[in-house]
């Protein structure tokens, strides 16, 4: 008799374990699965960032972040503030941090079943996300259009040795042949004189070189503002940007004489992987921000329509999308660290 009772109790206990309707870790299905999705996404981003690290460690030199990322769209600032290293990307980070904070407030209002509160804070979060996307779009446009950095071409690099940029006259004196080109953007020719922005009208071929291809051309070094840099010296590891004027379809490799006077050579493209890594990783992150904004919009509309009032679960859907949004901010912390700070 005694054994029968024990078996019966065991059966009931077994049934309770397998009867369902219990929440493992006291979390709902949706929340738990969101966490595991974020874990898998974290591994994807980790894969990309670790690949970045491996490739960067395999290169003898790498573009200097505060030289590459020093432009900004705030043209109203005075001239001496036109180049502000890392400031624009700091503004972008700030936007994502603010949007994360507004998201936490939305979740808090959700726990109090405050429908209008949730809507307002979610709207602010969406605005922050859209602001971040706008800034990223500006950054990409500037890098691709103005500075000429693409997935396969990296015009940012560092000098391996010290040197001095040469002027047109010095190149001709060293035996280079000057080739005058008619600039498509301008209507008139300037006869090869080296005035400010007219440096782009003339390029030089090394003595003995007859094949006139872009790769063989030497140019007088000029920056984007048209300021001719002939005569300026630089140290080893000094960062440079190969000029690309929008009217001229190719890059202009500045010619320089090495510090020991031994040879005249020209700027080289930087490591090719830089562009591909930058655009693919920030693009993949930007895609996450974009999809996050879409989801936030959908859920905010659901909130405003009163869909979650009946569920009486403290607006758990808002909490779940909040997890995704914080993950996006978290990934940005590491992308920001790896690309811009280190």
């Amino acid at each position, binding site marked *: 008799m005694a054994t029968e009772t024990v078996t019966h109790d065991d059966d009931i206990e077994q049934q309770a374990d397998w009867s369902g309707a219990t929440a*493992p*870790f*006291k*979390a709902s299905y949706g929340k*738990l699965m969101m*966490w*595991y999705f*974020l*874990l898998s996404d*974290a*591994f994807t981003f*980790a894969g990309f960032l*670790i*690949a970045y*690290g*491996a*490739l*960067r*460690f*395999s*290169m*003898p030199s790498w573009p*200097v*972040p*505060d030289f590459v990322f020093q432009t900004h769209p705030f043209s109203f600032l005075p001239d001496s503030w036109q180049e502000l*290293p*890392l400031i624009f990307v*700091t503004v972008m*980070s*700030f936007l994502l*941090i*603010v949007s*994360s*904070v507004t*998201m*936490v*407030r939305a979740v*808090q209002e959700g726990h*109090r079943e405050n429908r209008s509160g949730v809507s307002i804070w979610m709207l602010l979060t969406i605005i922050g996300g859209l602001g971040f996307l706008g800034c990223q779009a500006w950054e990409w446009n500037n890098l691709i259009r103005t500075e000429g950095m693409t997935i396969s071409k990296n015009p940012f690099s560092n000098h391996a040795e010290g040197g001095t940029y040469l002027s047109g006259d010095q190149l001709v004196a060293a035996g280079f042949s000057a080739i005058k080109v008619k600039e498509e953007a301008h209507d008139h020719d300037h006869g090869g004189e080296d005035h400010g922005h007219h440096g782009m009208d003339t390029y030089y071929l090394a003595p003995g070189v007859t094949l006139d291809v872009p790769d063989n051309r030497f140019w007088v070094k000029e920056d984007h503002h048209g300021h001719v840099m002939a005569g300026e010296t630089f140290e080893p590891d000094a960062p440079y940007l190969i000029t690309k004027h929008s009217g001229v379809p190719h890059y202009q490799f500045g010619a320089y004489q090495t510090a020991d006077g031994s040879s005249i050579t020209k700027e080289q493209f930087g490591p090719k992987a830089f562009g591909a890594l930058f655009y693919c990783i920030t693009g993949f992150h930007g895609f996450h921000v974009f999809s996050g904004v879409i989801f936030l919009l959908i859920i905010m509309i659901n909130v405003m329509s009163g869909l979650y009032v009946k569920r009486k679960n403290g607006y758990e859907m808002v*909490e779940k999308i*909040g*997890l995704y949004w*914080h*993950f996006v*901010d*978290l990934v940005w*912390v*590491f992308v920001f*660290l790896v690309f*811009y*700070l*280190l």
Partner: protein
Amino acid sequence: MSTLSYEASKKAVFRGFWLLFVLTLIEVVFSLMGKGHIPGISSVPTWLLWGTSILIIGLSLYKAYFIVFEFMHMKYEVKGLAMTVLLPTLLLIWAIIAFFQEGNAWKERRADVEAKDRIEVNDRVLGAIDDQTLDWR
């Protein structure tokens, strides 16, 4: 945040905002300082560059901890959930070490191969190697 009152919870969130904001600013200042942009430091010694890098990485890890545990509420979840999510990410520590070492090995092997190629070209020019010696057909 789940045990605090409404007013206290709101305050905690904004304190969190200032914490993240200030930490980010400190990171940017340290990064610029490490590269020599902040006036007063003209040439940057290597140890300073390494020191600021490690500091910046540390601050970023703290920011990550804060976002996950407070904003994403991990601190207030059941420990088991936290473990199932966080323990697998520890595997990445080995991935980072292994792949950075791998990248460094590529750099060194490339230098080795280039040096060997130079020696071989030299020896060929000097006549130490001829086509009969190298069985490459």
